[in-house]
């Protein structure tokens, strides 16, 4: 919410932009059910799920290397 919710690639640290999570919250309430927009929002959520899954996998791999050494 503090980030400004502007759909652009930020050129500097002081430019407003937006993130996946807040965009979903902002837009999900005013999309039609069977529209591409709706599905793209769900795709964004799926991306978030994937990102956290990959991060956990990386952490697991790092932990395993530490244990083997």
């Amino acid at each position, binding site marked *: *919410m503090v980030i400004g919710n502007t759909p652009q690639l930020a050129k500097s640290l002081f430019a407003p932009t937006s993130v996946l*999570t807040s965009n979903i*919250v902002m837009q*999900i309430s005013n999309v039609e059910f069977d529209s591409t927009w709706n599905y793209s929002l769900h795709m964004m959520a799926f991306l978030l799920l994937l990102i*956290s899954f990959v991060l956990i996998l990386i952490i*697991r791999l790092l932990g395993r290397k530490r244990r083997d050494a």
Partner: protein
Amino acid sequence: MNGFTRTRHTARAQRRNKLATIGFYTLGVLVMLLIFWLLFTILSKGLPSLRLDFLLKQPEEIDPGGGIGPVLFNSFYILFISLLISVPIGIGAGIYMAEYAPDNAFTGALRICVESLSSVPSIVFGLLGLAIFAEYFGVGLTILGGGVSLALLNLPMLARVTEEAVRAVPGEIREAGYALGMTKFHVIRKVVVPVALPAIVTGVCLVAGRAFGESAVIILTAGLSTSGEMWDFNLFSPGETLAVHLWYVQSEAIVEDARQIADKSAAVLVFVVLLINFMFRFPLWLGNRRRGR
């Protein structure tokens, strides 16, 4: 001088030691200051103008002077429903993972799944709840949907905390139980769980605080409005919670005293979360004292 002289090397080590001590103290104090500053700003803005009727009145759309009555009630109601669902399942799953699960690839995969679920942004669970309740079952935005989605959000975290707590119970205590001829379930019920209880309660309390302050999930599953009645126990009415109301008032509402309402709601929110923590921990603290005596 019994063989220990202050060489340049040890002098440097000592200097570094002192520096590190000062550094860690400063960082610790900094974090404490940050927390107290946050609490102080929120509470000092909201608490002085807080009256009892603000806690009980209906929220207003246009006129100033609206309260947070049904919203506050919905917060507790949804929290209660979500805990009712997530605590038994979460603790059961945690005990399974720690005591029964064999150490193979399947359990490893399950553990990775639990971990990644507990780190997923809450909005993803919100979308899941929306897809299940609003679109599949077609009941719309309801208190029940909010409670169940919150429970889903909290389950992985709860399972993890319980697993760690049960794993931390020393094996000797368990073996002593087996030596007395107790069955596995009996040992878990009478020995393991009581020892692990403080850590489990801390986990439940963390989860409750998180659920109480959660907004993204509730917006998508329980909606942005209330049924307009105080004490509405109907599971299928829309249930806006306090955190959602705070977000709504701050960003979309058109009442002229939105700022004051937001300040007061924030103060109430922080206060209730503190209260929940205190309420969960006070019995534990009391029990520890009694045992210590």
